[in-house]
Each structure stands twice: as structure tokens, then as C-alpha cells.
């Protein structure tokens, strides 16, 4: 039976702890990200999808208020997935 109990399951990989610091929302790189002003190729599927969603949201409403809302959403996302999306975060702030 393919019972994948957590402690024994070989698929649970420990991620290497990269020294990525989440930058404050006031960092201009966040705005650059939500406005897609730079070409990114992300590795984490959730980041790719989030970036596309933000692009669609900004196309519909490019107001400062919506830009800030998208920055808030991206910030919350990377806070939650700081380790899994470490490489993508690095791209945004490089």
C-alpha cells in the first residue's frame, strides 16, 4: 500500500536555509515586481501563477491603490513561502 506516513516518507525534503531576507514593502523592487518592469523566470509554480494573477489584476486596474494591494498580496505570499520561494525572491531583489 502506498501509505506515505510523514516521518518515513522519503519525499519530505529538507530545504537548505538560504539567507534571504524579506524586504520591507516600501522597497521599490516590490513595485517593479507587481508592474512586471523586469523579466523574471521563476522556479516555484505558485510564484509564477501569482505573478500572472497580479499582471492580470494590474491590467484591469492600474491605480496606486491596486498596486499597493498587489504588493501586500505578494508580501504576504513570500512571507509564507520565504523558504520554498527563496530563489524567486532572490530574483526580485537582485
Amino acid at each position, binding site marked *: 500500500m502506498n501509505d506515505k506516513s510523514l516521518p518515513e516518507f522519503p519525499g519530505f525534503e529538507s530545504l537548505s536555509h538560504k539567507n534571504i531576507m524579506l524586504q520591507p514593502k516600501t522597497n521599490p523592487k516590490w513595485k517593479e515586481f507587481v508592474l512586471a518592469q523586469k523579466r523574471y523566470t521563476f522556479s516555484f509554480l505558485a510564484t509564477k501563477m501569482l505573478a500572472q494573477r497580479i499582471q492580470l489584476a494590474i491590467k484591469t486596474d492600474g491605480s496606486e491603490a491596486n498596486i499597493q494591494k498587489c504588493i501586500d498580496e505578494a508580501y*504576504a505570499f513570500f512571507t509564507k513561502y520565504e523558504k520554498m520561494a527563496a530563489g524567486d525572491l532572490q530574483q526580485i531583489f537582485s
Partner: protein
Amino acid sequence: MKTLFSFQEVEQMIHDGKMLLLGATDTLLAKLPKGNWIGGSIPYFMSERGGLYSDNEIYVDTLPSDAHIVSITNYDAGSIPNVTADAPENGLSIIIIPAFTEVHTEYAENAIMYNNIFAKPITGWVAGTHVDEIGKTKPTVFNGKTGERLDDKAVVMHCELPDGIQARLEIVNLFTQGAGDTLTFEKTGFAQTECFVNGVKSSFAEVMKKYNGDLRLPLVADYYGAMINVCFANIDEATQSVSMFAPVLKGVEYKLATPLSKPYDTAFNELLATQQNAAPVFSCNCILNYLYAELEGKKLTITGPMTFGEINYVLFNQTLVSATFERVG
């Protein structure tokens, strides 16, 4: 690893309290006892024995025992946008949607804009039927907790994960964008009569005929490196409407895919061999890959039901989706 089980074996797993994700014919699933399971109708599988059709075995994914089921909930087209609100803060939700229903359309067209959709991992598939029964027999999904058999609602198992473990959702899609025209659409939808070719309004059916009308090649969008397919179903000659198995989205740029240079199974297994993949907790692949690449009897390194749509956050076509768990703390 064994993935296909007899009815009696699955019955025993349910009695043992296992948390199960099941794929089988409607007839088999309808006879199972209540328990910690959800399921969907489908008779096509990629198993450890290779690609096959089976109407007397059940495909089983068993969730890790430390994952905790928070709820098993049914959603219709009106309530499905709440799916992320019901999901635990750290967990994995598994969704099965019956094909060709309102909830299928709603999720396919709008999930990308649901609140928190990319912060609350959701994986799953679209239930189907034998391909000869399309339009005659309704695909079904099952809520094992209540014993309900549903042909108009989606079922979702919301699972919580312990601190320090997160779900990672990824895809394997062998198609990439070709170098040709850029197609865009005025509205989101599964069927279109018009498109814009490099910004010029055109008949979508005429454009497809110009491309030699090979409907097996999907349209592909590039979401920051993720290749997102939209596959063709048919062209209605009377209305000149082009139907697809997923919606094209307003505001997204598409290109016709580059044809694969190798057989699907060869290219798939070669690609997987280059990656260090953890064994998935759940995975599924597309019935179109099964049919177009003639996968019956051929083996892929990742197994799962061959479905009428694959879901990792949003609906995919002709794509393998997988969910793994990773230690992050």
C-alpha cells in the same frame, strides 16, 4: 509501488480509517462504504503496470497519516470561490470536479482570481467517463464522509499539515510556445468565435484552419516560465465556434505549441530523470496525453488517474500535476 487495488482491498483501507483519494468507475465508487475518502469517476490510469483502462480496479493515493482532515465539503458554482477561505492556513486541499458542469466552468474561468488561491495549495482533477460515453453519461464525484454521489458539485478534502511541513505543487508540461503568431481574446471562455492575431481581429476557426487544423497541438501561454496549455475540443462548422477543454483568459497572450520532437513517454521520462523529484503525495495526468500519445501499455515514472482536467491552483490541460510535502522548518 502498487496504485491499483481491488474493491475489497479499498473497502478494508476505508475500514482501517485511511485517508484516501480514489479514482475508478462510478459503479465501483458508489458501492464503497463511508469513510475518510473522496473520489471521482474515471476509468483511465497511469499505473505501475503502465497506462491502462480498468473498470474493476480502484486507483488509490493514501495521504500521510500525520496530515489531518479538517473537512470534506461539497461546492457548487456559487460557493466554490469560498474554497480558499475554508482551507486551513497551512495545508493541502484536494478537489475533484465533475466535467462539463457549472462548477467546472466557474472554477476554470475564475480560480486564478480567487482570494489567496496561491497561498492555500489546492490540487486535484476533473472527473470524466469512458470517452465513448462523453455527452451520454455524467461524470461523478463522491464525498466519502457523507456517502454522497454528486454530478453537479465539486468535492474538496481540506487537510491541515503540521508546522514545519508545506505542500509544494508543480507541473510537468512538455509543450512550449512556438515561434508563431500571438493570439489574444476579448473575453474569457471555453468557446470563442473571434481572436486577435498579433492584434488584428480574426475568425478563430479560420485561423485554426490556416494552422493546418491540427487540434492536437494546444495553445500555450507563458506564465513567468510556467507553460499553460489550452487544448482544442472541436470546431463547429455551422457557428464557426472553436471549443476548448479549458478557457482562454482575457488579457493573456497565447501561441500555438511547438510539436514534440520525441514520443511523449520518452520525452517525459527523460525530463523526469534529470530532476530530483520527491515522491508525490498526489499526481494525475491528462486523458489527452493518454489518447494522443497512445500511452496504453506504456510506462511513465509518475502515476495517477488520466483525467479530464488537472488542477494545481487552476485548471490545466494536457499537463501532469503533482503535490509533494516538504520540510521547511
